[in-house]
């Protein structure tokens, strides 16, 4: 098949699946899941064929033309898009297959699998899009599918609230995103990614406002501060959804989008600093919050926030300037290392975090929907779950040889080269990461079972084990050049390679943070039914909890006390003005007309008809010269 047809197949297969499920299979959950998984299989198969086939192409057509405004849809299938397509295809298929087992007994299976297909369609649209407006279209659609899937257990008030919150918070980010696109269109005359790069390369001056407004979109979708509040709540959705949408792919779309518009940031470095600090602060803040979570999914959610912060910070670190040669032959090379390292970490994170979430799904499934890690324990008995989950933990905390180690080191090296302060903060974050991950790992799998459900835990079926194993393998190998280079093509060349003393510094740091964090957690937390930090250092525990809740408290205050009261006030004024207008109107012109009309308004429709006919007849008579 021609590459373009393959790409169309990849995009449209999930849409077809969603349509078929919505129209025909609403009550046929089993069949719906088969259709949806088949679509995911097609996406993964055709997608990998495209990625590994090596064809890169662009194609577009106008979609809407009004006056001078033209919106095109098109594909820009370059190495970056290929990398993202591989991630979405693999993670998507893994989650679809896992869902077969995990959601087997759910009454609304058809809706669930239909939602997954809508998500795949929307996400692939973002990946393949060749212009910002098309990205925005699919950006909104992933938001919708996320709403749908978070709301899966809609009879729970908490799920309904979380879905609403996710959608609205994302809309706040999209407010800026859309304005940025409009500004870009007005200022550069195009929203096409290639044309933007060409315009910027041609010396077009770009206001820092444009990339900053576009970054607002990433703030929402990738849950960066201060719009991060929706992601922990989004854990109300089914666990496979958390793995696919709220860990591996959709939340990473913000970082992908940033890499797509990297030229705009290169032209406006001031914007890049903002990005850097937002990412850095989010990484640290979320890692601190993760320490005091007792819900297994919440630990992973805050971990995702923190890792996304890592990626955003990596992007914000920007280009790496390297001096080559010496003397007269010396020249400087500028490497877009920020985007390169961000995407590298996005890739490894997608695999090990999907693995961890699906692993937590296996744990939750095994424990009959128990999610509190204080009430687990002793789950080493589940061999597949324990082995794969452990690999995921080792990968995320950066154990040498596993995927997370390479991508985290690349970021730390870039930070060391460009901003030592950020390097310090990210290293501290890495300590915290291994701390909270090992805490969770120990509480879940070690010691004796601390609840009835944990002691009766049993392994899920093959459909749940298989995705775990595949993702575990990827969590090991995805960091190696042989694998990452295959998926990312020339984009892999953007990775910086540490030399000399910097290399040693980064290596020593990363092994030290791993040892300190993991060792401290292992020593500090007994595998017991209460939190050691809360018991031994209640002040610190309470402080972290306060920090954790501060944003939600502030937003709740705003919504309930400011926004709603303002709305009530305006509503009150409207009623007053309304009443006032009528009182004044009776004396005024409006009133005169009103009285006249009211006299006619006697509730009988005949009177109206007669009046109308009389008027029409009079006019007719007048102009035809009867009088």
């Amino acid at each position: 098949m021609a590459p373009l047809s393959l790409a169309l197949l990849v995009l449209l297969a999930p849409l077809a699946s969603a349509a078929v499920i919505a129209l025909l299979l609403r009550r046929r959950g089993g069949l719906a899941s088969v259709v949806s998984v088949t679509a995911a299989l097609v996406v993964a198969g055709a997608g990998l064929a495209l990625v590994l086939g090596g064809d890169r192409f662009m194609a577009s057509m106008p979609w809407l033309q009004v006056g001078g405004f033209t919106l095109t849809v098109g594909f820009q299938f370059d190495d970056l898009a290929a990398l993202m397509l591989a991630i979405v295809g693999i993670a998507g298929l893994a989650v679809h297959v896992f869902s077969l087992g995990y959601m087997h007994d759910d009454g609304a299976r058809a809706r669930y699998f239909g939602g997954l297909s809508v998500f795949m369609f929307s996400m692939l649209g973002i990946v393949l899009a060749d212009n910002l407006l098309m990205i925005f279209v699919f950006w909104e659609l992933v938001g919708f599918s996320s709403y749908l899937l978070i709301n899966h257990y809609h009879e729970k008030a908490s799920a309904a609230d979380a879905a609403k919150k996710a959608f609205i918070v994302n809309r706040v980010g999209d407010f800026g995103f859309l304005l940025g696109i409009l500004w870009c269109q007005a200022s550069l005359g195009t929203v096409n990614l290639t044309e933007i790069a060409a315009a910027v390369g041609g010396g077009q001056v770009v206001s820092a406002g444009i990339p900053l407004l576009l970054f607002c979109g990433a703030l929402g979708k990738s849950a960066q501060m201060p719009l991060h509040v929706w992601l922990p709540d989004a854990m109300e959705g089914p666990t496979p959804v958390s793995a696919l949408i709220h860990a591996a792919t959709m939340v990473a779309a913000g970082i992908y989008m940033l890499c797509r518009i990297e030229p705009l940031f290169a032209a406006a470095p001031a914007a890049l600093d903002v990005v850097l600090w937002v990412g850095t602060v989010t990484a640290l803040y979320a890692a601190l919050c993760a320490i005091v979570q007792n819900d297994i999914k919440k630990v992973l959610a805050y971990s995702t926030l923190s890792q996304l912060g890592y990626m955003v910070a990596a992007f914000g670190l920007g280009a790496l300037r390297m001096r080559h040669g010496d003397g007269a032959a010396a020249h400087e090379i500028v490497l877009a290392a920020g985007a390169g390292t961000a995407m590298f970490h996005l890739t490894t994170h997608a695999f090990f975090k999907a693995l961890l979430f699906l692993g937590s799904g296996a744990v939750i499934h095994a424990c009959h929907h128990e999610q509190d890690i204080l009430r687990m324990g002793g789950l080493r008995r589940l061999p597949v779950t324990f082995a794969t989950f452990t690999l995921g933990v080792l990968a995320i905390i950066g154990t040498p040889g596993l995927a997370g180690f390479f991508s985290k080191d690349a970021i730390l090296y870039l930070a060391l080269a460009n901003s030592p302060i950020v390097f310090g903060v990210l290293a501290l974050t890495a300590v915290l990461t291994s701390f909270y991950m090992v805490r969770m790992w120990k509480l879940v799998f070690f010691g004796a079972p601390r609840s009835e459900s944990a002691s009766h835990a049993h392994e899920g079926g093959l459909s749940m084990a298989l995705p775990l194993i595949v993702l575990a393998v990827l969590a090991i190998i995805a960091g190696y050049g042989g694998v990452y280079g295959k998926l990312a093509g020339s984009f892999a060349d953007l990775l910086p390679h540490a030399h000399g003393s910097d290399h040693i510094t980064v290596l020593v740091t990363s092994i030290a943070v791993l040892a300190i964090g993991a060792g401290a957690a292992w020593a500090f937390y007994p595998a017991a039914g209460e939190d050691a930090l809360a018991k031994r250092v209640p002040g610190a525990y309470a402080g972290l909890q306060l920090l954790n809740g501060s944003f939600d408290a502030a937003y709740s205050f705003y919504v309930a006390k400011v926004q709603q009261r303002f709305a009530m006030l305006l509503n009150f004024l409207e009623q007053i003005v309304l009443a006032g207008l009528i009182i004044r109107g009776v004396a005024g012109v409006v009133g005169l007309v009103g009285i006249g009309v009211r006299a006619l308004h006697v509730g009988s429709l005949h009177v109206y008809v007669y009046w109308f006919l009389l008027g029409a007849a009079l006019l007719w008579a007048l102009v035809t010269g009867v009088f």
Partner: protein
Amino acid sequence: MQLDPLLLAIATPLAVAAVIFAGLPKRYSVRLAYLGFGVPAAIALWLWSRFPAGAGEAYQFMSSRDLGLSLLGIKLTLGLNGISLPMFVLAGVVGLAAGLYAIQSGAERLKIYLALLLVMQGGLMGVFASVDIFFFYFFHELALIPTFIMVGIWGGRDRGYAAMKLTIYLTVGAMLSLAGLILIYHQSGAQTFDLITLRAEALAHPLSFTAQKYGFGLLLFGFGILVSLWPFHTWAPLGYGAAPSSAAMLHSGVLKKFGLYGLLQVALPLAPVGAAHWSGVLTVLALGNVLIVGIIALAQRDLKQVVGYGSVMHMGYAFLGIAATSVVGVGGAVLMMVAHGLSVALLFLLSTCIYHRTHTFDLTEMGGLARHTPVLAAFFVAATMASIGLPGFANFWGELTLFVAIWKSSPWVAAGAVAGVVITAIYALRAVAKVFFGPPTEAFSRVVAHVAPVDLRWAERLPALLLLGLLLFIGFWPRSLSAPLNSALGSLAPALAVKAAADPRP
């Protein structure tokens, strides 16, 4: 004589209404009503499919009849261009949906109710098929009068007060706009109400600045009241709250667009300099629609009020498109009108469906309805997503095009308009959640214990599917609408260029 499809679309519902008024038995009346609602919709869709791609500015399917009023320059001239075609389709489809819903509603005195709705339908088809301004106005009045009656007789809570207020406001609006039309007619000296001639005349010999200023001003406020321009909007939520659902669907979905359509098709090309003069005022008032009314919608506890205020709010976008006085703005406004017409009609229809299951419109006495009625919930979520501008529904294209146009005239105003997108999401999703999700409230549990709610019946589902289907079709394939629209927009360009030349602003 050749059969004139436009005349047929107007005459069929009127003829059916006349036969029903004449005393046709109820059984036959209902059957005939299917014909009265179905024929205009079928013709509209057929003409849409037949509309030539490269029509340009020209009117298609033209016909002209002298009804003895030619002394005043009035002829029954019918035709469609790329701007009126989308509206004609809107009127046909929403009319059919409202008709189908009315037929299954089992309203008291169903015969008269259907007949009035048919009169409204005939008037609406006439409004958008008229090339003659006199008939354009005449058909509007023809459609408006049944609205008052239907609110007054078949209305819900506060129907007497609502009908009175509706009548006062809309009559004043109609009178002001009539005055504006007469002023322009008088000043142009073309001695005709024919829009094509008037526009050619206005291009060759533009009206004086004073005439344009007052003409456009009268039309702006006259039409503005009819379209619920802030702060003349208070009739709308009240009126729609009280109106029976089919009347609310047809009025808010289609008839209300008369004012916007008049501004686009008549006021803007004939008085472009006047439009530029009023653009600043209109922008401020339209922002009032988007921001102030939007925030007021947040405070509503009644489902129908949320929909009503939301509808008023969205009119602000279309007004902002007109205030941008650009071709893109006009195009966006037309897309928006069609999309909004479909989605608001759908929301009113579904709100009534909800009411029949909850026995209340009070959002604080619902909750968890999705459990009993998953299909109704899916429809309502879809309609809500359409109204908050999710891509995939027609509304998105309208909003996006408008935002592009607004940004061009002022980025700050665009920021205000785009902020409305967030506000809409808040009030709309809040309403959805209160009706359908979470645990049931105590009040709703009592209702359920009394009569368990049944899911959407096919009689209700059919009109909803019609509206939703078209929203999705345009949403996925906007070119179906934008291609004819775009070619007609060219006719506005010269007039707007005149404006740009005369515009004293830099």
